């Protein structure tokens, strides 16, 4: 599939970016990617008013092909002409693909940077206003190690998929970084599958860490139920 389409999956209004990547190395846009697009489309108004007054720093972790970041850039999410975008991925293939997708969709005129990094470890604290993460959420014995070089292509793809115990190993690390990386007014959208037990995660983040956590969209995709939760701090 080199033409990505969401039409069969919902009644979305905003077009899906054009994607044509090497799916031996990067994760091909699938139901989870499309759910995120639909989620961001639904949240566009909310985000626009939340961030209307200042520059927004947007960070997508693990952008893969770059379809989600490109979608945000194309549609001015959260704000048009006031947002800068960072695509942060562990995989060099994903970063190349993200740059390529942005270019293909003629978004070069918008500030976007690709950074190779493990989650948010290289980001200055307190700077990210909008964080989006479609993590490796598939339960697996463990999270694969980072390949030594770019040669072993399929191992990079495994990194995009396999999430260790309950598929939560990587997401859990990000949740621990959330308070550090998000700006005061920052929000994060994180995708889960049912096997991640997202309701338990949400409850824990509410009770133990005082986050505001809301289920914003969910959908049955094959035998999987996917959901996106929004994390933000309690009203200041």
């Amino acid at each position: 599939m080199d033409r990505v389409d969401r039409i069969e999956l919902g009644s979305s209004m905003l077009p899906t970016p054009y994607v044509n990547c090497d799916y031996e190395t990067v994760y091909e846009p699938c139901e989870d990617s499309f759910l995120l697009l639909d989620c961001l489309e639904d949240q566009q108004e909310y985000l626009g008013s939340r961030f209307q007054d200042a520059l927004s720093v947007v960070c997508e972790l693990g952008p893969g092909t770059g379809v989600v970041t490109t979608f945000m850039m194309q549609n001015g999410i959260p704000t048009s002409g006031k947002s800068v975008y960072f695509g942060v991925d562990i995989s060099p293939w994903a970063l190349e693909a993200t740059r390529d997708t942005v270019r293909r969709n003629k978004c070069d005129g918008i500030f976007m940077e690709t950074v190779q990094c493990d989650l948010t470890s290289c980001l200055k604290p307190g700077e990210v206003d909008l964080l989006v993460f479609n993590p490796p959420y598939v339960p697996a014995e463990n999270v694969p190690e980072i390949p030594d070089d770019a040669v072993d292509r399929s191992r990079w793809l495994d990194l995009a998929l396999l999430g260790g115990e309950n598929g939560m190993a990587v997401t859990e690390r990000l949740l621990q970084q959330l308070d550090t990386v998000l700006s005061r007014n920052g929000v994060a959208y994180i995708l889960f599958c049912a096997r991640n037990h997202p309701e338990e995660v949400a409850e824990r983040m509410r009770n133990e860490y005082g986050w505001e956590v809301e289920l914003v969209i969910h959908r049955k995709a094959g035998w999987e139920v996917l959901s996106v939760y929004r994390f933000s701090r309690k009203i200041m």
Partner: protein
Amino acid sequence: MKFLTTNFLKCSVKACDGSNDNFPLQYDGEKCTLQQNNDIEFNAEFLTNILDRVDWDAILTVAADLGNNSLPREKPVLGTNGDLTEDDLAVLRDLHTLLICTSIVEGQMQCKNCGHIYYIKNGIPNLLLPPHLA
């Protein structure tokens, strides 16, 4: 990697998080290849918002690393009543040229706390750590 990005990158080493020297990274002016690129059009409102947001001292430091010592010591203050003057626009244009149009295509930078060196290749900064530091 566009100059503005240097305002958002710190050392990835966790042990450096307690230090004030892990940001900004120190860019090696000798080894950095710069490029000017005009893909992004000048937009005064965008630049005003960026100016509001950036850590000016870090901008000064990195600019000096890369051989530019011509920036004002204090963050420029724009006209207060909403209308930008010609002078304000000139300031914003200069910042546009530096922060948005100037990229480091190849180069390296170092944490001032732990000394770890990171590389920029083909315009992409690599802040991944080797396993023994991760």
